[in-house]
């Protein structure tokens, strides 16, 4: 039996579907806060619990049953809001992971724990980022990154064999349609660009944006979850060499926006690329003015945009070799994502 956290999220749900399709005998227990709201899926049992509760808040009889049956743990649940304070991010991402690992240790049949992390545990490091542990010395851009890195450390010290999977930023459901089910900071940033509220983007000249579609990540996790012989390894589920240069991403975004004659007539300027010091000066300046709309706009960017000024390239050779193909290059579908966002007005269209 698979014990899965995060099944109600975009990625966790997609992984669940794939694993059920791939293994007709698979049974799954999914951790959910409210089993009554769980959509019924054959061979899937919702169990009530909470990452932030001791023992995940599992009832004793449920815990006993899981101890008997679970042989694979896939921990995909996380608080992915970049702007959380560190203590809040830790409560879910670090302590939640600690509780999952404690149960995995206590359940005798568990053969492997898979932990869905993030490529951005690399934080402020630049250059080529290997599919291996980082030392964290460079620091992080936001509390989410730090909390996921701290959680990784717990996983690496776990008693059960483990595999760490590090997706980069999930930006759409699938590359063919570009549809977006779950909005995140990237989509919010594109919306601010569309409204002409982004004066500058902190970015190094050679910076790229690493994005991935959910279906690639879900497929990769589902495949690696059942792959033998991966214990102790870490994999980047990233665009890697297919990441898109920031300038090209802006160009592509503007081309899509400009298909709308009314938008084009406004002649909104494309944001300039700034170094971190200049961007920080802008933030302080806007803060001093107390201009709330611009403060909100910049805050929306500030929790992740500084990554663009810390150019890095995620190595993906390990994942690519096992999966047989790299993630689709961002350039192949980014325009469709922007088209979708504009068409549905960032989820506000009827």
């Amino acid at each position, binding site marked *: 039996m698979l014990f899965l956290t995060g099944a109600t999220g975009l990625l966790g749900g997609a992984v669940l579907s794939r694993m059920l399709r791939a293994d007709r005998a698979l049974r799954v227990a999914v951790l959910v806060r409210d089993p009554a709201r769980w959509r019924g899926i054959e061979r899937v049992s919702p169990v009530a619990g909470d990452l932030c509760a001791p023992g995940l808040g599992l009832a004793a009889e449920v815990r006993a049953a899981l101890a008997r049956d679970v042989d694979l743990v896939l921990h995909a649940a996380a608080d992915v809001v970049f702007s959380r304070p560190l203590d809040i991010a830790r409560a879910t991402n670090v302590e939640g992971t600690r509780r999952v690992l404690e149960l995995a240790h206590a359940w005798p049949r568990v053969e492997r724990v898979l932990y869905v992390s993030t490529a951005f545990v690399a934080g402020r490091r630049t250059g080529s980022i290997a599919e291996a542990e980082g030392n964290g010395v460079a620091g992080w851009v936001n509390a989410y990154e730090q909390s996921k890195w701290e959680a990784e450390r717990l996983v690496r010290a776990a008693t059960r064999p483990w595999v760490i999977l590090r997706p980069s930023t999930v930006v759409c459901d699938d590359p063919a349609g570009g549809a977006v089910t779950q909005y995140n900071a990237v989509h919010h940033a594109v919306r601010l660009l569309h409204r002409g509220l982004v004066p500058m983007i902190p970015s190094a000249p050679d910076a790229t944006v690493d994005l991935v579609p959910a279906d690639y990540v879900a497929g990769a996790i589902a495949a690696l979850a059942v792959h033998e012989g991966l214990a102790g390894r870490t994999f980047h589920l990233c665009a890697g060499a297919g990441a898109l240069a920031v300038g090209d991403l802006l160009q592509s975004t503007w081309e899509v926006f400009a298909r709308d004659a009314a938008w084009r007539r406004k002649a909104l*300027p494309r944001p300039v690329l700034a170094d971190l010091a200049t961007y920080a*000066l802008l933030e302080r300046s806007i803060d*001093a*003015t107390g201009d709330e709309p*611009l403060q909100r*706009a910049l805050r929306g960017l500030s929790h992740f945009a500084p990554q663009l000024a810390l150019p890095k390239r995620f190595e993906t050779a390990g994942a690519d070799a096992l999966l047989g193909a790299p993630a689709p290059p961002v350039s192949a579908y980014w325009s469709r994502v922007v088209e979708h966002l504009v068409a549905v007005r960032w989820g506000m269209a009827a």
Partner: protein
Amino acid sequence: MSDRPCLGGIAYAFADEARSVAELGAAGLLTSDPAVLEGFGFGHAHVAVAESPYQLAVAAAGRLLEERRIAPESVDLLLYGGTPGPLAQQPADVPWNGGLLQTTARFKYPAARLQYELGLERATVLGLDQLACVTLFGAVRVARALCLTEGLQRVLCVASEFFPAAAGREAIFNCTSDAAVALLVERSGPRNRIAGAAQVTKGYYWDCDALRDEIVASYFPTAVHVVERALAVAGWLPDEVDWVIPHNVSRTSWEILMGLLGLPRARLWAGNIARRGHALAGDNFINLRDALQGGDVRPGEKLLLFAYGYGAHWTALAVEA
């Protein structure tokens, strides 16, 4: 000598009364906390009380002609801009009267009066309007073009901008000053060659009150764009710029723009921001005069002047000192 349109002289006149930012705040003339404006580099501003915009225009233009020993009849064209029509001719402490614009009094234009009173006998007159703080940049472009295409030898450009005494002194976090600026554009000259000019107008931002946040967001990228265009016309690389002669808006905004242009802050000639505040009439040219007179700028140095006219206009000039 081939045509080398240049800035042949600059003079200015400020309103007599100078008040500190703290005093302006105490008088209720600022919308922001004075500490915020002081943090942005502002110290003092000149506030007209008894003077009219026209009086300062006469003072600035007269000073220019006198200092440069220019015979008034040698001026081919007077370009005038700033506080509109009859309003320019009443003291700042007289409440603005919209009725003036609804009668034939509206035709009592300060530009014609200036031509007469300064004895610019040969000069024809053109008025420039609706460019906010970049009126003189527009005047320089027009003057330069007419020097090259119509063979004019000498164009006197004058701008005088006031806020009424009762009005606030703050415009989007900038502390404003009442002043007039006069500058001479000549067809050829040895100094201050106009090497390049660029202007971008984005009419979308005409409703500047409703679109203030969008304007603030567009300020920097459009500024970088227009500066790059002006430098390209001049054939200069950004790093070749010896001095950036600013308009006196927030010093912090200039530090940001210098960062975006990749220029060290030491090349920003910024001392007048604290001393003078932001003169809507054209403080780049006030600063240029002071920088030249103070010896900070040496002959042959490459100067970049950038200004933004609130609402829709971004402009830049490349000047070889």
